[in-house]
């Protein structure tokens, strides 16, 4: 089995000489990633910055990130798992049938070159994005990339990290883990936490119509979720807390505008590597914070149930 060989982003800044992005477009989706952490910064053991590093991009199409890459490998959509599996074989010196690679859009020479670069690196890292985790194979792809990185540690230092994004998703995951043991998809209806992705994850609950009220905080499910889930949001009382009138707020029964976290509300955000960063508001907002609204709702409910 693989696992999760990870590090904080400063380790990448200080040490990494091989940076691989897989199934993502950081130039547009994480625009500070290259300059703060991975490519251009001059770190403790990477004194020449970009010159000390090689960047490989694996994706299904050219994107603005391609320009930053030293090596671009264009994989056929949905064939990442096969490529990862072939790489696992190649780093161990096992034979790989070039004909069976044909469906991936990559050649054996390309993969041999990548496998060699990985083994030769002093400190390698793979950042994998939703182009890997949310396409054919899904969690199997995540497992394959994490296992590849774990196995590379037999040759050199190697790390793999998901390119998480969008607000404080890592913080939500972190807090849920310490309070319940699980990162998401947690159900409390028996009075204790239970976890079952596919059963208790949001889209599944909505599509099956299992919930009769929805509270949305700092997310916009109506903009991204499948239509049957959105239909259910419209059917049941949906309450949305958001700093702006989001797509979900437009279809919700109740919308409450709140102060924008990081701009006019403080708090703590967990970076994608789980480093906690304090937020200090720069502006004042006429709106209450999410925390204040939730606390007032809870107080009102508690007063009603005791009265």
């Amino acid at each position, binding site marked *: 089995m693989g696992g*999760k060989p990870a590090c904080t982003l400063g380790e990448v800044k200080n040490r990494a000489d091989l940076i691989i992005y897989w199934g993502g477009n950081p130039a547009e989706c994480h625009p500070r990633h290259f300059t703060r952490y991975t490519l251009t910064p001059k770190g403790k053991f990477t004194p020449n910055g970009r010159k000390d590093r090689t960047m490989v991009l694996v994706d299904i199409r050219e994107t603005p990130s391609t320009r930053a890459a030293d090596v671009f490998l264009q994989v056929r959509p949905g064939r990442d798992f096969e490529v990862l599996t072939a790489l696992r074989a190649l780093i161990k010196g096992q034979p790989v049938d070039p004909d069976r690679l044909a469906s991936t859009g990559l050649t054996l020479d390309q993969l041999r070159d990548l496998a060699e670069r990985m083994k030769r690196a002093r400190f390698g890292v793979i950042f994998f994005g939703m182009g890997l985790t949310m396409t054919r194979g899904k969690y199997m792809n995540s497992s394959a990339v994490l296992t590849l990185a*774990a196995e590379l540690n037999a040759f050199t230092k190697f790390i793999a990290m998901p390119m998480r994004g969008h607000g404080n998703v890592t913080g939500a995951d972190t807090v849920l883990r*310490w309070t319940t*043991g699980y990162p998401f998809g947690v159900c409390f209806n028996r009075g204790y*936490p239970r976890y079952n992705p596919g059963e208790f994850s949001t889209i599944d609950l909505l599509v099956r119509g299992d919930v009769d009220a929805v509270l949305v905080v700092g997310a916009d499910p109506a903009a991204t979720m499948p239509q049957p889930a959105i239909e259910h949001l419209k059917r049941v009382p949906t309450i949305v807390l958001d700093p702006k009138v989001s797509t979900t707020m437009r279809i919700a029964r109740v919308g409450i505008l709140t102060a924008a976290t990081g701009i006019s509300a403080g708090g703590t955000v967990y970076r994608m590597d789980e480093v906690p960063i304090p937020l200090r508001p720069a502006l004042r907002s006429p709106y209450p914070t999410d925390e204040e609204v939730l606390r007032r709702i809870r107080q009102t409910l508690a007063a009603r149930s005791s009265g």
Partner: protein
Amino acid sequence: MLRIKGGKVYDPVHGQAGVVRDVCIADGRIVENVSGGRVIDARGMVVLPGGVDIHTHIAGAAINFAREMIPEDHRRAVALVRTPARRAGIGGVAPSTFATGYMYASMGWTTIFEAAVPVLTAKHTHEELHDTPIVDKGCYLLIGNNEIVLDLLEAEDYERARHVVAWLLWAAKAYGLKAVNPGGVAAWKWGQNVRGLFEPVPGYQRVTPARIITALAQIAEDLRLPHPLHLHCNQLGLPGNFATTLETMKILEGRRAHLAHLQFHAYGGDDWTTFRSEAPRIAEYLNDHPNLTADAGAVLFGDTVTVTADGPWQYLLYRLTGHKWGNMDIENETGCGIVPYAYRQRNLVNAVQWAVGLELLLLVRDPWRIFLTTDHPNGGAFWRYPEVIRLLMDADYRRERLKALPPKALSRISLPDIDREYSLSEIVIITSAGPARALGLSHKGHLGVGADADIVIYDEDPDPGRMFARPRYVIKGGEVVVEDGEVRQTVLGREFVVRPNYDEAIEAFLQPLFEHYYTVSFANYPVELERVHPVEVRSLGE
């Protein structure tokens, strides 16, 4: 106000072993006398100071990583259903934070110390400690692989290293200094480890594990920290590592130190097939050197998850077992590894490990210098402490258990030859009075006037395992929080933080280095004091 009436009081600090007397409480502390208030009839019961855990992993990025790695354990774990007095949670080998507080308190432990905290993620640790109710707590800063400190030792600038360490300790809002595999975790950043105490750490000319250990032990003394350097020695888990442990104790040359989870550092043999106990030699050295304390890090058979900053060891464990492997290197400071693990009675190495933990507890003669831990969750979960207590108090039971070990193991251990049985007073010392003293917590671990009213009351029971597993009452800061083993009300415990002296000018030295090496801004690095609450700050004089 509260009066505990007529119980048999065990208070080793005051030489009381089974003295029948009343214990009176007002304003959260023990007082001479009270008139009025609740009375607990404790006749036929034993009254002890609340347990103090000197080394456990219960809060922060590392244990939270472990929680993420083992949903299969959560599913088979005890579920804590919400009640009016407590929140929901899960138990198991890495319980959720609220569950951790309830489970420690339900066992009679009222003060616990998280043993491994990086500065960079210390905010997270304090958030979790805040969400660990009832118990008082504190944490130790991981400093033995901090590259800014190592670079200063390379430059032989001890003075500046001392100021930097003091600054970092306050930045983390920690209570003590911890070194894990000194130099080895820094080497792991390149996939390496250190060899022996006297070879330079990879990447350095002069800095050796020995230099890191002696410098940090000296810094802890110079800063007058209430708890000395808390040391996880090099070569954890490896056959023959007792030699490294003995060398480590020798190079301390009289400086105070606490040796963490000593069980994992007391092995002989050349490889896994010749693996054997060297606990007697380690215990003998400890017996002769009063500058040292240790905790057991005892192993219990069964499933658990291993969690340590010792990244290279965890990688080896992953290669040995083929289990899942989590790794999290923290920039410039430390590492972390997670591997689920099962200790099996029929496995030679595991059987020896089980014996070594007990041998150390039984062969170290002075109970004030060896403390009960399982290095939770590494040797077993903390809620299994009553099992260890039974093994210590009942030699017949121990002999019974030895029969289940592989016959080959019996020639590798000395446990079969040990007849010592712990008295109840000695158990109080290794679980409460001793660790409180080693931590410099004068208001914990005893039942004298002025002590914190952290008290546990058990129905007397000939089976100590059963007795310790289910207190009749637990009182924390004067409040009755547990009755009949159930949490009846939740109080907030407080955190202990030390504020050492340092030259403020050290920030001017640190900031440019920091901006070069780190990826967060200098202003965002220290833990804000407001984040830690309720808090008791101890300022340390010059």
